[in-house]
């Protein structure tokens, strides 16, 4: 499984969103991504990629795309999606 697939899977499991919906996901943009959804998202990403996010990064994690940038700081490169 690629990092992109793992990354997408986390959003699918926690926020119940898939495919094209993923790219548009933002914190509080859907009912599932509220403060509690955010906790679960962060926890699942930490577990799946075996990383520990600092609190400022947890707070800065405001969208699906922003999350990719943040994970890069922790050595997790999310592959670009095919056009």
């Amino acid at each position: 499984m690629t990092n992109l697939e793992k990354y997408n899977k986390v959003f699918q499991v926690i926020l119940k969103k898939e495919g094209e919906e993923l790219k548009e996901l933002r914190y509080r943009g859907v009912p599932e991504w509220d403060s509690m959804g955010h906790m679960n998202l962060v926890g699942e990403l930490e577990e799946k990629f075996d990383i520990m996010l600092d609190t400022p990064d947890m707070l800065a994690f405001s969208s699906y795309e922003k999350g990719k940038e943040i994970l890069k700081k922790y050595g997790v490169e999310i592959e670009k999606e095919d056009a």
Partner: protein
Amino acid sequence: MPRLFVLEDRLTQSNCYLMEDNGSVLIIDPNDHERILKIIREHQWNIDYILLTHEHCDHIQGLNGVRRGYPEALVIATAVCSENLGNRIKNMSGMMGTYLHFKYGGDKKYVYSSILCNPANLTFDQEYEFHWKGHMIQMELVPGHTMGSCCIRMDETILFSGDYLIMGEEDITRLAGGNEEAYETYAKPWIEALEDGIHIYPGHGTDYILKKEKR
């Protein structure tokens, strides 16, 4: 009756319950080990038991400190709770700073260190009961808030409900380890079957007497 002390944690607002009877103490959800140890040492009491309602960090953040001070105290929890005590994601300590930021709002950053605890000394799957100072203590698995959540009865008249039955709040199943299906199947009917008149001591907020119209 034993004397009951309530220690509310200033940061997370969790309740720790400390029961004392003739110098022996039973603690439920140790949240602030410095305050707990101060009271115990000032009175020269001894801790017999530490009971955990569930594994979330606001309910166990004082466990390591209390255990260091009183290593002979017996820690009792459900098997699932015990297993998750040493997992910073399952016990939520890895993200508690963020959680508090959302909970309280504003620009303040909350510093909250990860908490890793050793397993309980005694675990159970469904229920465990014992006598302490002439009182019947019954711990019962009530999965939903987490799969390792339990409620603790004393003498059928008092219920330490953990993060269930918090006054004015819905029971939450969306935090780490929570399971909505388990809540609907097990916890909700269990809570609905509770008898009127039982004194509820929840993991947050004030205690109250359960009455049907309050449910």
